[in-house]
């Protein structure tokens, strides 16, 4: 048995998406900025993809700026806004992805006052504390993710964005993990900026988008060439953008089926995990992405267990692929008040649309077997049927 259960790190390219991309990898195709016929064909394909991505998230096509991925989208949103304002206050939730945290920290070195928004034990933003921060005044921009990549916790974005608007602040929502897994509607979210990634929704790596309210000005991150209406220079990655568009259209069409499927698998997994002594599921009571569960089996650190699970063919992670290799406890779990030692045990399972019951069951069997190996005293209990 083997299964890939790390879809929040990256989802495998959908074969139907590859079909859409192939003409732009094989054929004589051209630079979308070129004025000749082949250039126009490439440009038409990019515009079709723009409409597909916009449709997935309830935006106008003209609001979509293609980027090289979610990291660039987050950088563009935050630094693009900051560059057009005199330094003031910036707020971001304590559980943001490094591609939000780090641009914020970079701005802190350039005179901005940067503050985190606290979350409660379930990983949800505390509205009262957040409101008090906004009430102090001078906040230019708030950044909060729609769904957390590690725990899967979903924030109440329309409410948080409304509070920001009331305080005269812009709102950026990182929807990289949410899009394609739960409904995301830019126009109704109240956010002015929304980040998306292609490879988290079965599209190719190397494409993403920033959705920007039509009225909002932005300093480009990449200068030159005037592509994307002057907001993002660089020859368009036509094949990847076409793939992103195709993936977005499939995600919109299959959203409910994918949601139901992964939710069913997660419920099955969680029921079986409940039988493992001492196992703790993080943010179990919070609204979460349907496909994501993060847990720990104290006293074990994930570094030990992940390697053994990998040897058995199960690809899971501690939480963020981007932080793998470091032995730091997750900043997301620490922000939720999880003790560091427990946080070091975090294992995240993130299901995909093509996983099966056998994958979920096989994972639990592998986990029990691994735990029995590293904890012989518990072996009899663990080896009993789940």
């Amino acid at each position, binding site marked *: 048995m083997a299964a890939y259960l*790390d879809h929040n790190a*990256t989802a495998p390219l959908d074969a139907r998406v590859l079909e859409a991309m192939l003409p732009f*990898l094989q054929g004589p*195709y051209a630079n979308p900025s070129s004025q000749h016929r082949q250039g126009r064909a490439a440009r038409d394909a990019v515009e079709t993809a723009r409409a597909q991505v916009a449709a997935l998230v309830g935006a106008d096509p003209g609001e979509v700026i293609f980027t090289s991925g979610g990291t660039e989208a987050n950088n563009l949103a935050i630094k693009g806004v900051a560059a057009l304002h005199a330094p003031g206050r910036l707020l971001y939730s304590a559980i943001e992805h490094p591609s939000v945290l780090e641009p914020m920290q970079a701005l802190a070195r350039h005179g901005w006052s940067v503050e985190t928004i606290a979350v409660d034990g379930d990983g949800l933003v505390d509205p009262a504390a957040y409101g008090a921060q906004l009430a102090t005044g001078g906040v230019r921009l708030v950044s909060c993710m729609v769904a957390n990549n590690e725990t899967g916790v979903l924030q109440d974005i329309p409410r948080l964005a409304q509070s920001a608007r009331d305080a005269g602040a812009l709102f950026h929502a990182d929807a990289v993990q949410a899009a394609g897994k739960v409904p995301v509607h830019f126009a109704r979210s109240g956010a002015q900026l929304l980040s998306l990634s292609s490879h988290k929704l079965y599209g190719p*790596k190397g494409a993403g988008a920033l959705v920007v309210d039509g009225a909002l000005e932005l300093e480009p991150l990449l200068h030159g060439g005037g592509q994307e209406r002057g907001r993002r220079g660089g*020859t368009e990655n036509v094949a990847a953008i076409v793939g992103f568009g195709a993936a977005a259209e499939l995600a919109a069409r299959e959203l409910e089926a994918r949601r139901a499927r992964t939710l069913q698998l997660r419920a099955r997994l969680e029921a079986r995990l409940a039988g493992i002594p001492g196992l703790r599921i993080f943010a179990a009571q919070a609204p979460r992405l349907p496909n994501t569960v993060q847990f720990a089996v104290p006293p074990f650190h994930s570094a030990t267990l992940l390697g053994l699970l990998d040897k058995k063919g199960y690809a899971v992670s501690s939480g963020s692929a981007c932080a793998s290799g470091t032995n730091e406890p997750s900043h997301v779990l620490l922000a939720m008040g999880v003790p560091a030692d427990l946080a070091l045990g975090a294992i995240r399972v993130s299901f995909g649309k093509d996983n099966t019951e056998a994958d979920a069951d096989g994972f639990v069997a592998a986990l029990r077997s691994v735990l029995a190996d590293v904890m012989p005293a518990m072996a009899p209990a663990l080896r009993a049927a789940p």
Partner: protein
Amino acid sequence: VIYLDYAATTPIDPAVYEAMLPYLRPGGVHGNPSSSHAEGLKAKAAVERGREQVAALVGADANEIVWTSGTTESNNLAIKGALEFRGARGAHVVTSRIEHKSVLDTCRYLETQGVRVSYLAPGPDGRVAPEQVLAAVTAETALVSLMWVNNETGVIHDVAALAPRLRERGVLFHVDAAQAAGRIALDLRAVPVDLLSLSGHKAYGPKGVGALFVRKRPRARLAPQMHGSGHEQGMRSGTLAPHQIVGMGEAFRLAGAQLAADSARIGVLRERLWQQLRALPEVFLNAEAAPRVPGILNVSFGGVEGESLRAALPELCVSSGSACSSATREPSYVLRALGRDDELAGASLRFSLGRFTTAEEVDAAAAQVVAQVRRLRALAPPRQAA
């Protein structure tokens, strides 16, 4: 349709496409290179192999190659990164008027941040001479940015002569080699350039991927422009796209293997094209006196209007200059800098030939151009003597 626009973008070589497929198709390698499980490690191995292939073509060490989304990002990272690391205010940058938009627009942005920029004009041969650059360098000069090969005329700058002189003066030297890599031999072991931008899609690789060479000894220091999880030695965050990186790696491997044969064959075809075009009166080969890459032929046609000429050649994919400035429809700034008047600069075509260009295509293209120039000249009212 005859495609003679290889300087705008090259088709993906079939061998490159084959190399990319295992990272796209169902059952292939789909992991995130940052993941520590087996799927991630397979993706990471591919990324590192690509890095070695790109490094090998330019005489660099693999750990001196930073992946980007393309040359525009490489140029932005090199120039803004170097200036931000050093401190932009009061610094001086030397560049040329014939750089790609991604260098020029970045420099113009830096001017808004307190950087003084000198834009050197090329001499009558279309080149900026090393002596011109050295004469412009002052005690405040932090960076020189000069392209190795110009995208419109194909002229080759004497980077090998300039680099050691700048090294002696302690000035950081960035070179945009998007048009040079794979077209002329580059050896960074012999030429002490500090930063070098590379493109995938100008060398028969995919769009959406590029690289920046950042010298280790002596170490060129940059502030990252895309912040996040700290990929690429902290210089450029964002999930890497293995299929694109594998494609660029294979493209660069092929370029190294075929450089001599490609150059010789393409040079012969260009001469064949020129001999047919020059049969017309009043045609001017731009930058004729300078060393040029074999694939580019930039010709101005007297007595015709540029827009009409391009409209008369719908089956011919050529460029009126640089694709990246064609959206603005301005007469080429490169040709104006060469001393061509607006009318003649506007009536110019850039033919760029490549690996898949045939003698039949060249002959057919020449026949179309000659016929249409004759037709348009016959239609035009006789010109007044100046």
